[in-house]
């Protein structure tokens, strides 16, 4: 699956992360950029969570930027899921 539109989710607040997503041309693969206040301690596990979720949604051709301020795993997953659903136009229960 390929993102349909640019999207974002999350905030710049402490314990949160903001994800920015933009679709890339077909067959571009994944381009992931992570900026984190705890990159050295948790960068590897953060990347693992992101890749697993992109695999789960079968996402390719995506440019994903994450700016992390020490988010826990459930927050990372929630914000990425929200950004992905928004980029795939799969949200439910929103203002239309």
């Amino acid at each position, binding site marked *: 699956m390929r993102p349909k539109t640019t999207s974002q989710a*999350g*905030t710049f607040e*402490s314990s949160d992360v903001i994800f920015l997503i933009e679709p890339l041309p077909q067959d571009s693969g994944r381009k992931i950029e992570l900026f984190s206040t705890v990159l050295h301690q948790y960068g590897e596990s953060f990347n693992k969570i992101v890749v697993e979720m992109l695999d789960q949604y079968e996402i390719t051709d995506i440019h994903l930027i994450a700016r992390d301020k020490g988010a*826990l795993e*459930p927050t990372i997953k929630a*914000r990425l899921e*929200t950004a992905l659903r928004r980029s795939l136009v799969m949200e439910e*229960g929103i203002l239309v």
Partner: protein
Amino acid sequence: MKNFKKRRTMLYIPGNNPAMIQQGGIYGADSVLLDLEDSVALNQKDSARILVRNMIKAIDFYDTEVCVRINHLSTPFGMADLKEIVPLQPSAIRYPKTESAEDIVKLLQIIETIEDQHGLPHNQMTIHAMIETAMGVQNVFEIASKFQRIDAITVGGQDLTSDMNIIYTPDGAGIDFARKRIVMAAKASHIDILDTIFPDVNDEEGLRKETEYAKKIGFTGKAVINPRQIDIIHEVFAPTEEEIRKAYRIVKEFRTNTAAGIGVFAIDGKMIDAPVVHRAEYILKLANIEIPASDSLPDY
């Protein structure tokens, strides 16, 4: 009480704030209310819903009761909230702006359908009806008494004053009738009743006074918007040492007299009967004191 739970404080936590949610269990409130309604911006409803779902699954809230306030079913968000939250079976779902028994019938139909889809029982998660309109106040007894799953009702003072086109004043004059009517409906239905928030987090004396008043007229607890307010409310609702000693003595004497076939007796010249014993037992529960089922209780 249907099932005794300490609900002296219920801390509102905005559903889109991960820092506050992840610390929800350490503030010391009896309950936390993860809010998907008024504290979440309209364009962030999806984000909050997904965050709350993930947090409930992953975070340990220790002994704190976890409740979720959903959006009303008349909004574009209510149904999606239920689909996300009901499968998690938090301790309770709070339904805002409840105005009639029909509102609860409709809500329960949807909840039970979702529970059936997930093979969940219908008697685990309870409902807290929030009364915050004049119509809700008028219909509160029917709302409180008709449904086994409702185990608490709450007053939403800010919305109620808005609905009544009056200004909230520190003496609470405008909503005093509503408070007392709602308390009486809860008492008649043997369920908990939580007072509205105290909006000024810097006015500790005002909070104490309002909580003392709420306790005096029968509330079992109060909603909280800042962790700083928790200790003050717990202090007010805590029974005094004198009350605890007296309650213990009443329960002890009651057991002794019941065993001897005596229904009504006196302590210090005052008649003790079933309602007094019931009140004494409630005070001991509030004080976390369990009296062992023994004929020979020690004196204190």
